[in-house]
């Protein structure tokens, strides 16, 4: 054999693969489990990447259908003459649409439900089709007093196609059931079911009286030669002056696309984080593996193996494991992809089918491989430094720090960063996401460490024997307890925060659920209807409370600066354009209090500048303070006002509250409508009351808040699935890692159990030590997650929802209680046979 042959790469690799294969005997199961924990992360990357691409493609194919037109111009009041003139030059087809809310009444079942009416001009939508049953209904409903009704609504009231629906004073035939509308996510219909009618029949309903809230719009279909975006760009200022807003196809697509990109970016970053944590677990395992093989490596070196040869042996093992993880990950990911669309269908405006996204799969697999491989490689570099001398020494010196190892971990972080930036398409957002995740993991890790230290301390202070040993064996080196606590804790955290946020959201409406608090609201009551509606309510056993006048108004100028100029500032447009439904009162209610200035309750009718009170948040949004002047347009009449007080309002209370409150004495003569609320006892009572009110007052709207909160809860339920999916992934990765860590320490455990038995321990005691260990792991991991969840919830409650952060501590308790039994079960199942290890085992010195 010549020197050249002995050191050739081909020879080395062939030799190394043979040894790698032999060396992996008995450890393949272990390797498989570790690969699985990485495969889960890769699977999620593949699934989410493909899913994101699916969504983008779905949107790209449906661009025009989302809007149904090339351009839509909206107004909150009938288009003025100047507005009409401004729009005249627009070429192509035009369709008018009016949208408003009303109670839809179904005579057959005698039920009334608050619905959103869309009165459509001819031809709209220009692009895309409303899917109906029967299929031709969408094409023919505009030819008479016919309506297309939301499938959800029909189901709710038990009505059928062919029956009648009454809107105001006009009866329509239910011509078809709406299955799907382009550009409208299905969830939207749960909150406000839609009814489509022809524009020609709006007048006949008699619902468009003065003061009722109607959204007017014109939809355009341009000839190909016309550039709608350019037209909007040049006419922006005039449009604003006319208080018109608009959507173009491009804007719409951009918006939805951005939202979805952010969602998938967040999801895939979390997936990558799971992969990273799983990978750290694997790194720990490889580290331990190498440590155990040190002596063997020393012997190999004595026998003449070169460093390169030895490194290749273990590299092959790690590479095989990683490749296996990638293959399994891709397969599982492709399977997962099939289920993802169903999870967001309710919130996505376009239906789509999953399809194979080669590029995304390749990308995810590539990232996954790179990250996993580097993570497994890092501890492996220690192999280089094993000296042949170790075979002659009884004791091994602990390995020193190695720059190559640090370089590997550095590369891992770098890859993660590049991934984040690429996925979000921006340094800033990518960096922020990453910082957030790192902070979260940091807190989790810190908590885990503190808990670990605490557990050891406590166990040393006179816990029973079995507990003490449970703790000690929990923190045995190859257990990766800290990483497990972080991964499992992250799952718990996601679930707990989700639950917390949800109870906070729902908690805002908790008053509705309290007895005696109003849960029924009626509004848009005309002055001449008020007495009769109140009488009906009393008759039906619902005492009207908080009878409040409402006067709609708009901002015309602030401190003399016109709305057109204001729109060019950074004051949010919605705050300037919106219709302010205000009220007047002589005294403030219980749920509001003045925090600045002084409230004036009564003025003379001929006062020149009316003192008004603003709610603090809207004042901040409008960037106004005490002493500032608002010119308000009340039904066409400008009214000069001055802010003399700022209020803090408890919005969650069921009392009617307003952004702007006027003093009594000035608005009494203005056109106004009334609202009131009351307490109902049952769904039947609500239905009866609604029916009775609608019968003679079809324009009045009412809603049952108890029902609404329920619906809302249902929607949140659906929205939660994506987060639950990630939480589930974390838990699964954690459990797989737990399983493999267990496998790693199995031999040692076997020896310890046999030793304990030899020393006279009862099987029960040995079992108890193990069960303690696993129970503790579950408990500590839960605690780790809950600590972060509490912090997050506290922040959410304080800054976002502005409510008591912990309305229901139970939300935190439940996920906490699910994990420990799981880990306990895993411990039990995996150790049952170990407890039966014959004690003689230890005498054979095989430990």
């Amino acid at each position, binding site marked *: 054999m010549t020197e050249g042959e002995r050191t050739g790469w081909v020879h080395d690799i062939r030799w190394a693969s043979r040894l790698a294969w032999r060396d992996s005997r008995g450890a393949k199961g272990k390797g498989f489990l570790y690969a699985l924990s990485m495969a889960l992360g890769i699977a999620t990357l593949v699934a989410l990447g493909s899913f994101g691409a699916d969504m983008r493609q779905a949107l790209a194919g449906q661009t025009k259908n989302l809007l149904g037109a090339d351009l839509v111009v909206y107004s909150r009041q009938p288009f003025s003459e100047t507005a009409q003139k401004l729009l005249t030059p627009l070429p192509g087809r035009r369709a008018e649409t009016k949208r408003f809310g009303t109670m839809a009444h179904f005579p057959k079942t005698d039920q009334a439900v608050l619905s959103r009416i869309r009165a459509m001009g001819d031809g709209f939508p220009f692009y895309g089709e409303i899917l109906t049953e029967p299929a031709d209904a969408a094409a023919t409903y505009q030819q008479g007093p016919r309506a297309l009704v939301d499938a959800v609504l029909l189901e709710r009231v038990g009505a059928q196609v062919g029956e009648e629906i009454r809107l105001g004073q006009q009866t329509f035939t239910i011509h078809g059931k709406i299955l799907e509308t382009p550009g409208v996510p299905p969830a939207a219909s749960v909150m406000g079911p839609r009814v489509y009618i022809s524009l020609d029949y709006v007048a006949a309903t008699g619902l468009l009286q003065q003061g009722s809230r109607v959204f007017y719009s014109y939809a355009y279909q341009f000839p190909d030669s016309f550039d709608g975006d350019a037209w909007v760009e040049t006419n922006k200022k005039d449009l604003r002056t006319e208080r018109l807003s608009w959507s173009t196809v491009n804007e719409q697509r951009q918006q939805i696309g951005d939202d979805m990109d952010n969602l998938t970016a967040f999801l895939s970053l979390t997936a990558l984080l799971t992969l990273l944590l799983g990978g750290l677990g694997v790194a720990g395992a490889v580290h331990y593996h190498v440590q155990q093989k040190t002596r063997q490596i020393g012997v190999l070196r004595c026998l003449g193996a070169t460093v390169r040869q030895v490194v290749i042996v273990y590299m092959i093992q790690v590479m095989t494991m990683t490749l296996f993880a990638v293959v399994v990950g891709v397969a599982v990911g492709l399977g997962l992809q099939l289920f993802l669309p169903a999870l967001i269908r309710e919130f996505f405006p376009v239906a789509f089918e999953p399809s194979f996204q080669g590029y995304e799969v390749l990308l995810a697999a590539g990232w996954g491989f790179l990250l996993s491989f580097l993570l497994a490689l890092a501890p492996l570099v220690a192999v280089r430094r094993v000296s042949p001398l170790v075979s002659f020494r*009884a004791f091994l010196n602990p390995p020193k720090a190695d720059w190559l190892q640090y370089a590997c971990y550095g590369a891992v972080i770098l890859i993660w960063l590049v991934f984040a930036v690429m996925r979000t398409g921006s340094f800033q957002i990518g960096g922020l996401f990453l910082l957030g995740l790192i902070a979260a993991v940091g807190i989790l890790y810190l908590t885990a460490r503190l808990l670990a230290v605490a557990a050891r301390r406590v166990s040393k202070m006179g816990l029973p024997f079995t507990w003490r040993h449970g703790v000690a064996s929990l923190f045995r080196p190859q257990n990766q307890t800290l990483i497990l606590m972080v991964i499992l804790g992250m799952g718990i955290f996601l679930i707990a925060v989700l639950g917390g946020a949800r109870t906070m959201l729902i908690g805002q409406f908790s008053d509705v659920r309290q007895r005696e608090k109003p849960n029924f609201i009626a509004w848009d009551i005309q002055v001449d209807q008020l007495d009769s509606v109140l009488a009906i309510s009393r008759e039906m056993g619902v005492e009207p409370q908080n009878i409040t006048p409402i006067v709609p108004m708009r901002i015309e100028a602030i401190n003399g600066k016109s709305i057109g100029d204001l729109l060019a500032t950074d004051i949010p447009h919605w705050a300037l354009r919106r219709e302010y439904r205000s009220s007047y009162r002589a005294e403030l209610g219980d749920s509001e209090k003045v925090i600045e200035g002084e409230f004036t309750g009564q003025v003379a009718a001929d006062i020149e500048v009316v003192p008004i009170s603003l709610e603090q948040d809207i004042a901040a949004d409008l960037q106004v303070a005490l002493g500032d002047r608002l010119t308000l347009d009340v039904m066409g009449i400008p009214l000069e006002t001055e802010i003399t007080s700022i209020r803090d309002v408890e919005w969650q209370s069921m009392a009617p509250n307003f952004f702007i409150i006027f003093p009594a004495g000035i608005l009494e003569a203005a056109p106004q409508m009334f609202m009131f609320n009351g307490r109902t006892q049952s769904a039947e009572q609500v239905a009866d009351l609604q029916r009775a009110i609608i019968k003679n007052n079809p324009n009045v709207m009412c809603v049952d808040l108890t029902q609404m909160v329920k619906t809302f809860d249902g929607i949140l339920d659906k929205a939660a699935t994506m987060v639950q999916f990630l939480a589930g992934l974390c838990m699964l990765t954690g459990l797989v890692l737990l399983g493999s860590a267990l496998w790693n320490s199995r031999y040692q455990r076997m020896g310890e159990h046999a030793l304990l038995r030899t020393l006279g321990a009862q099987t029960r005691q040995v079992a108890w030590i193990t069960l303690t260990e696993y129970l503790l792991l579950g408990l500590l991991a839960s605690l780790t997650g809950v600590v972060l969840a509490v912090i997050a919830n506290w922040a959410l409650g304080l800054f976002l929802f502005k409510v008591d952060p912990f309305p229901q501590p139970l939300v935190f308790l439940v996920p906490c209680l699910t994990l420990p039994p799981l880990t306990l079960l895993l411990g039990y199942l995996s150790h049952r046979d170990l407890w039966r290890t014959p004690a003689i085992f230890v*005498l054979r010195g095989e430990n």
Partner: protein
Amino acid sequence: MNEILRVAQVAKRYESVGRSVDVLRDTSFTLYAGESAAIVGPSGSGKTTLLGLCAGLDTPTSGSLTLLGADLAAMSEGERAALRNRKVGFIFQSFHLMPSLTALENVTLPLELLGRGNAEQAAITLLDQVGLADRRHHYPAQLSGGEQQRVAIARAFINQPEILFADEPTGNLDLETSERITDLLFTLNREQGTTLLLITHDLELAKKTGRLFRINHGQLMEETNQQAQIAEVAL
């Protein structure tokens, strides 16, 4: 004299696939209180097997074993464990300390299994006797082989056993350390009046015991001192 261990016509056969091995055949002997005995024999001759049987770690194919007046065959695994815990001590060739426990915790382990409270003081005393009192908070990985074995000896004596089983206690140690360990073993043995059954390759060690058994091809024979000396000369 008080009978501690009686082995009567014990045989052990290992059945493996398609083949069975008779490791021990018709083995009988009795040990009395305070005696010390050594079993010598070539590797693979069945020494460990015999020790395991005597300690109730394994069950014989035939024959009976009486340990401290109790018939091992008639006892459940739990009862045998309890007996070991109270009255038996062990020392192994590869020390077998629990890696996750400190030296002190390893020594107190048997007493803790029993649920005794004042384990720590006794353990410190014993660690002091083996010369490791100042190392009591160290983990096994931080101790040399000889030190680990000394901790193991302390652990073996902590429950004041009536009988001590040692399987090649010096097999993994160098000569000098072996001597220290041997001295320690016999000193404690004398002080506590423990019966000692040990397996060894080391004839120096074997000579210190009162009785000597030689095992060959599954056959156990007791040798008189004279015979032993002749055998040694012959070697």
